[in-house]
């Protein structure tokens, strides 16, 4: 009797439990589905972002290809040959000014008065004046020629607009009206033929330039300052290089053919290897990512050079050498740095770091350093320093983890064999944790290359490949980065335009760089886990 009732109650408990149910699901199932849903949404959103990025970016290629074709068809390519020469000559002109500055500096140091200096510089002034007249003919020709492709392009644009208007009308069913719209077709070959007629004039101008330059070379006055003499030698070399280049340009111009096809791959190669990024100009927009890439890369490189020793060094110190009290102080403090908003750091960079670095380089006691004083307050160096500050917490935390994962037994064994602390760290701890440290550095690099606000504020935002002939001084030139450019231009770009697509392409490039870095870091970490386990 008693046993039977007990049996009954167990059955009740097992089979007829009155647990909470919703749509036939009990609480465990609901929790499980809730978390599964969260994970799914995260994945779907990420996938959508990637798809959107590619969808917006991929149309860059046909548009860029079209733009490249027009560049040739309208004859801009032809005119650019001469424009290059013109810019080269103005660069040479700037060099004469540099010589003048260097010479007068030395003369002033010697204690000569203003009048005496002017007197001494008179031959140089005469030379500079003569040289500045050299490109006059060329500049006039360029100015004349520039009008032609611009006109062709304008008419082409009108035709395209008319065509799209007509298509629109047809689609709306207004056939009669559509037929009334007259669509011209521009024959680029015929339009640009006029450019070729300038060739004889061009040859004439070239001959005169060559004659002028060769004639002037012997007229370069002698200098007192060694710097100016070096500059003048370089000037001579470059000027002769320029004259040597004239026949090559002439040949290119003579052989230039607007009908020559452009390979489709150039839409990609001109983007990846192009050395000019010029947008919203009246002439032609170039989309070459190299200056941005170089800017990003150099800033990140500098940031890493500064951040890795600090981050890894601090990690080693905190984990291996510091007392408990120091650990409790240093760790939260370094991690606190990552809590500073990047825009605040950027503000600090402009107001304090940039100013003080420039002030420092202007001190006369440091004037012996070759590239001092620096002229730009905002440059690669300031951006690199601030990014290093941002990367240190990442590198520190991850490297500290990696070092912490080194089994204590290794340290004990090393010390028991009579190694001192430094030997233990250098020969056992660091090699064992090396892959973890490398992964930390890579992740820090990923953080740095993706950082936007700081570089936008303090990198100086000049889109050009830094002048590597300046040696270390290259780090004190302004630059622009891929991230900063997107942030800067995205706001003012026409949606769907070539520039808009180009910005997305830069975004995709960044995406791939980050992906690659994270992949490498993951791989190294996995390898590390196996070797330590």
């Amino acid at each position, binding site marked *: 009797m008693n046993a039977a009732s007990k049996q009954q109650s167990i059955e009740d408990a097992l089979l007829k439990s009155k647990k909470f149910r919703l749509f036939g699901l009990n609480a465990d199932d609901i929790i499980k589905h809730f978390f599964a849903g969260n994970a799914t949404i995260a994945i779907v959103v990420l996938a959508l972002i990637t798809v959107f990025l590619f969808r917006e970016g991929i149309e860059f290629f046909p548009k860029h290809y079209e733009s490249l074709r027009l560049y040739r068809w309208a004859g801009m390519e032809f005119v650019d040959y001469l424009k290059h020469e013109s810019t080269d000559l103005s660069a040479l002109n700037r060099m004469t000014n540099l010589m003048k500055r260097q010479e007068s500096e030395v003369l002033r140091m010697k204690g000569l008065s203003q009048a005496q200096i002017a007197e001494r510089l008179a031959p140089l002034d005469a030379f500079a004046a003569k040289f500045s007249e050299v490109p006059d003919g060329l500049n006039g020709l360029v100015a004349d020629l520039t009008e032609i492709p611009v006109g062709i392009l304008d008419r082409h644009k009108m035709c395209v607009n008319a065509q799209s208007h007509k298509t629109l009308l047809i689609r709306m069913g207004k056939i009669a009206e559509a037929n009334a719209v007259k669509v011209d077709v521009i024959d680029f070959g015929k339009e640009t033929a006029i450019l070729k007629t300038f060739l004889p004039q061009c040859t004439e101008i070239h001959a005169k330039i060559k004659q002028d330059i060769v004639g002037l070379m012997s007229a370069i006055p002698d200098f007192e300052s060694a710097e100016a003499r070096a500059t003048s030698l370089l000037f001579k070399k470059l000027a002769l290089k320029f004259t040597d280049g004239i026949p090559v340009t002439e040949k290119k111009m003579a052989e230039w053919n607007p009908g020559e096809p452009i390979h489709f791959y150039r839409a990609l190669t001109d983007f990846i290897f192009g050395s000019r990024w010029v947008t919203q100009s009246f002439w032609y927009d170039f989309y070459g990512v190299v200056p941005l890439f170089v800017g990003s890369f150099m800033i990140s490189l500098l940031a890493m050079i500064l951040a890795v020793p600090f981050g890894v060094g601090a990690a080693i110190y905190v984990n291996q050498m510091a007392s408990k009290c120091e650990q409790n102080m240093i760790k939260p403090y370094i991690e606190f740095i990552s809590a500073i908003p990047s825009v605040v750091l950027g503000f600090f960079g402009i107001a304090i770091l940039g100013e003080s670095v420039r002030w420092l380089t202007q001190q006369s006691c440091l004037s012996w350093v070759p590239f001092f004083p620096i002229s730009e307050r905002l440059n690669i160096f300031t951006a690199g320093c601030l990014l290093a500050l941002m990367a240190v917490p990442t590198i520190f935390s991850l490297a500290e983890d990696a070092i912490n994962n080194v089994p204590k037994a290794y340290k004990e*064994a090393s010390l028991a064999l009579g190694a001192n602390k430094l030997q233990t760290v250098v020969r056992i701890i660091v090699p064992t944790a090396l892959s973890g440290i490398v992964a930390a550095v890579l992740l820090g690099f990923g953080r740095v290359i993706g950082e936007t606000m700081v570089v936008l504020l303090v990198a100086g935002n000049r889109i050009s490949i830094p002048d590597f002939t300046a040696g270390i001084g290259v780090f004190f030139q302004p630059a622009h980065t891929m991230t900063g450019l997107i942030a800067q231009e995205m706001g003012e770009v026409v949606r769907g335009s070539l520039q808009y697509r180009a910005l997305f392409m830069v975004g995709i490039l960044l995406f791939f760089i980050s992906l690659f870095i994270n992949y490498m870091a993951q791989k190294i970490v996995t390898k590390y886990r196996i070797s330590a386990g």
Partner: protein
Amino acid sequence: MEIQEAIMNYSKEAGSQHGQEPSGQNAGVTGDDREARILIRCDKVNFFYGQSQALHGISLEIPEKQVTAFIGPSGCGKSTLLRCFNRMNDLIDDAKVGGGTIKIHGVDIYDPKVDVIELRKRVGMVFQKSNPFPKSIYENICFGLRIAGMNDKSVLDEVVEKSLRGAALWEEVKDRLHDSALGLSGGQQQRLCIARAIAVRPEIILMDEPCSALDPIATAKVEELIHELKKEYTIVIVTHNMQQAGRCSDLTAFFYLGHLIEMDVTEKIFTNPKEKQTEDYITGRFG
């Protein structure tokens, strides 16, 4: 409970007699060992982890070129004492020797003037869990020499071979000296650690339960090795395995709750111990 009380009374007694423990007093100097030179001499050593006392007035003497085994239940302080001999306890925060002296060759090793690095070169250690570095077998053996500044390849080669032969590992690994040491089996790794310890030619080798993670065959090999090493080195071994202590040691010390209960020739400890606790422990009646 009774035993604990007995211990408490015992230690009070010992305290009142200024550490003149009835059996510890003549520890290690009985019988044949009387002629052997004493290498390590502990005198009333107290040891603290923070506030808690781990060793209470340990006095013992360890003779040269003998195997001395420390036995006792877990937490009785035998490993702590062992790690005092090469000052590995320095690595632990708050751990300190509070009174008493440990002398090796008559030098107090806790004297502030003592060079800990030099001490550890002379007092090698093999740990409970084999801990070869994640380097090649060759580099593992060389480590001690390299940190001492020795980089002559011919010398290193010679030492590697000699040490590996000394640890009875040469035949097994001679063809793969430059492979990772982590690829060896547990027993081989432990013998590699012994080879690494003897490569720097220490005088004393401390072994902290060297066989606790090994299978019986590997254990037998290590024990055989200990027997061989005795000819050249003074060995102090901590073990939980009574048979092992019986098999390979000359002297045995029994610890309980931080006290040295008894130390004597191994044979005597196992056949005719003076103290009741020792007998109980050895026969497996408590713990």
